[in-house]
Structure formats: C-alpha cells, structure tokens
C-alpha cells in the first residue's frame, strides 16, 4: 500500500495532485471541527438570507447586523459582569452575564432588521441601498463606540467554551471524525445544524413555510388568498435578524472573547453567496457554507503545517496572503460557476404595494 502511494506521488505533475488528495485525507479529520467553526457565522448569515429572500426581501445588511450583534454582545457582557458576576451556571461555561448578553445581542439584531424591514417593506426603498446604509451605519457606530471604549480596555464576560466529546466517540472508525466535527464545539456552533434542519422542515413542510414562499414568489396571488404579505415579510426579516445576530455574537462570544473593529470581514456577504449557491434552501446554504469554510480551514492548515514533498515546496513558496484571500477567491469562483442555474424567488427584491381597497 505504502509503495503504491509513493509510486503515485512520484509521477511528475500529476503526482502533485495525488499528494494533494493524500494531504486532504490526512488533514481533514483533524481540522473538521475548525471547518464547522469557520462555517458557523457564514451559515447563520446564509440562513438570514434564506429567511428574508424566501419572503421576497433582499438583505445585504447582514454584515451590518452581524457586526452590531458582535459589538453589543461583547459590550453587554462588559456592563453585566460587575452586576451578575461570572459564576458558571451550566455547561459550556455559561454564566448569567454571558447568557443575558447573548440575549441583548440577538435583540440588537432584531432592531437593526426592523430598520431594514421598514425601509424596504413600508417605505419601499431600494433594498440594496437600504442594506448598504445599514452596513455603513453599523460599521461606523461600532467603530465609534469601540474607539471610545478601547481607552479603558475593559474585560468582557468571556466566551462560551467547547464541549469535549469523550475519546471513545471520536475514535470510532470512519464516522468518528464527523461526530467530532459536530460535537467538539461551543453551543452556537453546535446549534447551527439543529437550526438548519428545523428551518428546512418548516420552510418546505409547514403552513408558515408555504406562506413565506408564496409571498416571495407571487405576493399578489398570496394576498388574494388572504395572506397578509406585509406582515409575513416583516416577520421573516425580523426572524432573519436573529440568525444574523447569532452569527455575529458567535464571533465575539464563542470564537473569541472580545470585539475587534470590522471583525466580520465579509462573512455576511460570503453568507449571501452561500445562500445563492445553496439555491435558497437552508440545507443547501449550510452545505455551501461548509464548502467555503473548508478553504479557510485548509488555508490555515497549510500555513501552519504544510505537507511534505513537492506539494509542500509549491505551497510554502506562495505568499501567506494567498491563503488570506482564499475564501474570497473560492466564493467568487463557485458563485460564478453555479449562479446561472440557481433561480431566486420570483418576487425577490421587489417592493409590494397593496392594491387600492376600492
């Protein structure tokens, strides 16, 4: 077996491909939890996108909602720790301050979403402009406050900790690493898969899901059969805000324990690409998010423990910035490859105006 592998590796040119495959087989089980961690904010952003766009509202303000929630969650923790203390009250290193701060972060996401909902549903402004305004405002406001706060460099409420699955589980052959991927996680990353499954079932099997999709495909027909288009759209955009806020809070309350200016680094937009690649379905969007995040995790893995042989020589000769840019490159390439065959909801992005009562 080893002889065969070495023979394959030493083929000129094509050997490098075999080496890459070998490296992937070796490294993916080890970095599988990192893949899900990198996918978590992207997947939650994509779920927000699916929630809004299935009802016909384009939301490119997801990035802004995320950065707001990241800031609000962290800073609420700073304010709450002196009052509520940091004693653990449950698993995942939960303290009362941390849980309340998460709640406040989610609420902030709903508030920002309400602004987008009002602008795009009631005012009937261009939805992409509205989302852009939310992004500029969110980055400006969080940067402004962070600059004022950074002078005192306060301590937050810490972060949610990861669950450590027992060795017996992760050592199961073949599926052990998959279990490790989903279990070796904090509460937010672990909840993503649950949210995806529930959302998928509700969207395609429940009355709410049917109504949401009807409003996104043909609002006039939906109104004719008695569905309140405006109300459904508001509700979906607000719920979407919870998803995006959870993705933002993940960054400052689980992946790290502090806030950095601009820490979302385009994840909201990568989430939108994941939604498109996943054809506006929760499961598809989650799969696309995993695909995108694999490139991030793999890039980091190559940076810190490059493969040996010719492949390693090639990969380490590239500047580090290639790996920084990798997730964005992968997003563009996959988006350009898939998008023509991925069809958005028919009324996506179009404001709905009720017909006059008389």
């Amino acid at each position: 077996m080893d002889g065969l592998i070495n023979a394959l590796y030493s083929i000129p040119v094509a050997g490098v491909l075999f080496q890459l495959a070998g490296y992937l087989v070796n490294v993916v089980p080890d970095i599988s939890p990192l893949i899900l961690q990198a996918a978590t904010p992207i997947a939650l952003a994509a779920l927000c996108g699916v929630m809004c766009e299935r009802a016909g509202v384009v939301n490119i303000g997801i990035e802004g909602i995320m950065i707001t929630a990241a800031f609000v969650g962290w800073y609420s923790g700073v304010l709450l720790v002196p009052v509520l203390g940091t004693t653990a009250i449950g698993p995942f290193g939960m303290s009362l301050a941390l849980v309340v701060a998460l709640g406040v972060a989610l609420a902030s996401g709903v508030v920002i979403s309400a602004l987008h909902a009002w602008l795009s549903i009631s005012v009937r402004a261009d939805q992409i402009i509205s989302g852009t305004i939310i992004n500029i405002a969110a980055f400006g406001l969080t940067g402004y406050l962070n600059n004022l706060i950074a002078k005192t460099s306060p301590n937050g409420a810490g972060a949610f900790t990861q669950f450590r699955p027992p060795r017996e589980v992760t050592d199961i052959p073949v599926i052990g690493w998959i279990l490790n991927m989903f279990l070796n996680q904090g509460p937010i990353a672990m909840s993503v898969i649950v949210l995806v499954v529930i959302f998928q079932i509700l969207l395609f099997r429940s009355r709410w899901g049917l109504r949401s999709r009807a409003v996104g495909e043909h609002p006039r027909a939906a109104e004719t059969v008695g569905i309140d288009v405006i109300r459904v759209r508001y509700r979906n955009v607000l719920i979407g805000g919870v998803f995006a806020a959870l993705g933002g809070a993940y960054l400052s309350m689980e992946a790290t324990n502090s806030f950095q200016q601009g820490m979302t680094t385009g994840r909201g937009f990568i989430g939108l690409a994941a939604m498109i690649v996943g054809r506006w379905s929760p499961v598809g969007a989650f799969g696309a998010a995993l695909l995108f995040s694999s490139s991030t995790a793999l890039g980091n893995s190559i940076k810190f423990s490059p493969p040996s042989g010719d492949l390693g020589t090639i990969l380490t000769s590239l500047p580090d910035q290639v790996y920084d840019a990798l997730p964005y490159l992968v997003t563009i390439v996959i988006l350009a490859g898939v998008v023509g065959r991925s069809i958005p909801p028919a009324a996506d992005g179009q404001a709905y105006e009720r017909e006059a009562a008389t």
Partner: protein
Amino acid sequence: MTAPSSSGSPGRATPLLAQIWAVIALPLISILLALLVGAFVILASQLVLPGGNLDLLLPLTAYAALFQGAFGNFDALVDTLISTTPLVLGGLSVGLAFKAGLFNIGAQGQFLLGALGAVAAGVALAGAPPLVAITVALAAGILAGAFWGFIPGLLKAVSGAHEVVVTIMLNYIAIAVIAAVVGGPLRQQGRPEAITPDVGNAALPVIIGNDGHAGIALAIVAVAVVAFLLFRTTLGFEIRIVGANPDAARYAGMRPRALTILTMSIAGALAGLAGAVVVLGVTHLMTPSFGTTVGFDSIAVALLGRTNPVGIVAAAFLFGALRAGASLMQIKAGIPVELIDVLQATILLFLVANPVLRRAFRLRGVKAGLETTETITKTYAGEVAPR
C-alpha cells in the same frame, strides 16, 4: 425654512428658485437632520460609557472643531479640496455604474488596485522625466482599477453573478494583493519595515498652497469627461437606457452584456484613478496596510449627488470637508472619526426614506433623485443579463 412659499410647481412666480429648491430640499434637510442625529449619538455615547460625565455642549464643540478643521484657514481649505478629489472620482465611478443599473460597491478595491498600479509604475519610473513618469503612473493606476472593475462586469455578463457579492469579495482580495506586493516585490531594500520606495518624479506637482496637488484639477477634468460621455455620446445614451429599462435597450438593438462589462471597466478606471491620485499626490509611497474610506464614501457621494456629475462634485465636497475636519474633531473634542460614517449613513437614511420626509415637511414637487437606483435590485442574484 421657506418651503411652503416656493414648493409649488416650477411654473409659478419664481420658477428658477423653485427648481433649485426642488433639487436641494431633500439633501439639505437630510444633512441637517443627520447632524442632529450625530449630536444625539455624541450625547448618548457619553451615557453608555463607564465614567463618562454628561457634557451637553460636546456636540457643539465637536462640530465647531469639525468646521474649523475643514474651513478654518487656507491650509484647512486646501486639505478639504485634497480629501474631496478622490471622492469626486470615486463618486463618478459609483454614479456611472448606477446609471447603468449596476451597484459598484467595489470602488474600494478598485481604488486600492489603482493605487498599487500607480505606485508600482511610479517607483519604476522614479528617475524618468516628470511628464513621462506621471503620465505612465496615472495610466497604470487607471488600467489596474479598470481590470478590477472588468472582473465583476465580465462575471455578471457571462454567468449572472451579482456584482454586489463579487465586488465585495474583490475588495478583500485587493487588501491581500497589496499586502503581498508591498511586502514582496515592491518592498524597499534595507528598511526594517515593509514599505515601498518613494515615487520620485512621478509625484504630482503642487498647484495650490503647500500641498494642493494637481489631482484636484484632474478631478475637474474627469467630471467634464464623464458628463460629456453620459450626456453627449452614443455610449452614454446606451448606458442610461440600459439602466433605465434593460428590455427597451435590448429591443432597440443595444447589447446589455457588453455595456455591463464596459461600464464596470470605466467605473473601475475612475476609482483606480482616484487611488493613483492619492498615492501620487499625497502619500508618495505605500505600506502593506494602505487603506482608505474612499470606496464606501463614494457610494454616499453618488447617492447624495443624485448620480449626476455636478451633484457628485457638491456631495464630494461635503464629505471631503467632513473627512478633512474629522481629525481636528478627534483631537479637540475626543470624538472618534467614525462619527463621519454615522453622519454619512444617516444622511443616506433620510434621503432613502424621502417619502416620509416629504410628508413630515409638507414638501411638494421636490425630487429625491434616487430613480436611477431602481433597477439595481431587479437584477439581483443570478438573473443572466439578456443578450
């Protein structure tokens, strides 16, 4: 506010005044309301932060410093013009794309690539005669920016990938490209930190005050060129028709796909020129962390300026003044420069929510000027541009 007397139809007693009012009423009200919101943010942030005591006059102190920093003396005014220059070019870039129904959020990345192209050519020609060095460096910046705009244009035309997502990704890739090139091939030898050599003779000459560079004149030329292109050429006509009604354009025999690619390339060239003007006129060299707020300011400039070349100059001057005055505001009143972003977003918010403003202020006959943005969302997410 003299609104009620002059807000009638333009055909009444003071047609000219009424027409001017119709154009500037909404932007003006939006700016004033945004300043009020900004004052509220300054006051509220004192309450949220620990150990802050409420200084009711802080907003006034801040705005006074902002004004002084932007217009306080001749040098401040020149600084304002220098900050205005890239915003004019960036605003033209975003505004031109809006005219064709495209949303160029990528002005940021195109600016960065343009700056990189200009600095690379400038460093190579640092010893050449100034006229040659400057011309080639500017051209390199324009080409680099145009290439960065061409990519999303091509992808949109060929595969239907929406330019909003693609250009945002390209903005992040541009940051990585600059870090790699400035830290690698362009790095100045014998310096501990990664930094490029000076552009030498490729630096733009100073024409006003101590450091008012020739880019200011260049921006004015660009305004005239874009205005001519949009309103006096066939290409400009086709761009405007495609933006207003893609179906009509197709039936009239125009080619929306080709126009999409061309418009994004021209938009990229303008943003790239903005980047070139900043490195050749202001910084003269580049660090790996070379960053800017021009890209996102340009969106605000284009929207506030109603995507019209003359309006864009006025809007760019406003945001240029805010950017130029912001540092003095930070020094004198301790207000972070990010307040400018908040003001910007608030101005746009009121502008977009214009139906509400019109009702609140009983404005009739005034225009919001946002009509050109209406087709942007329609092409969202995967609709392949028709042949």
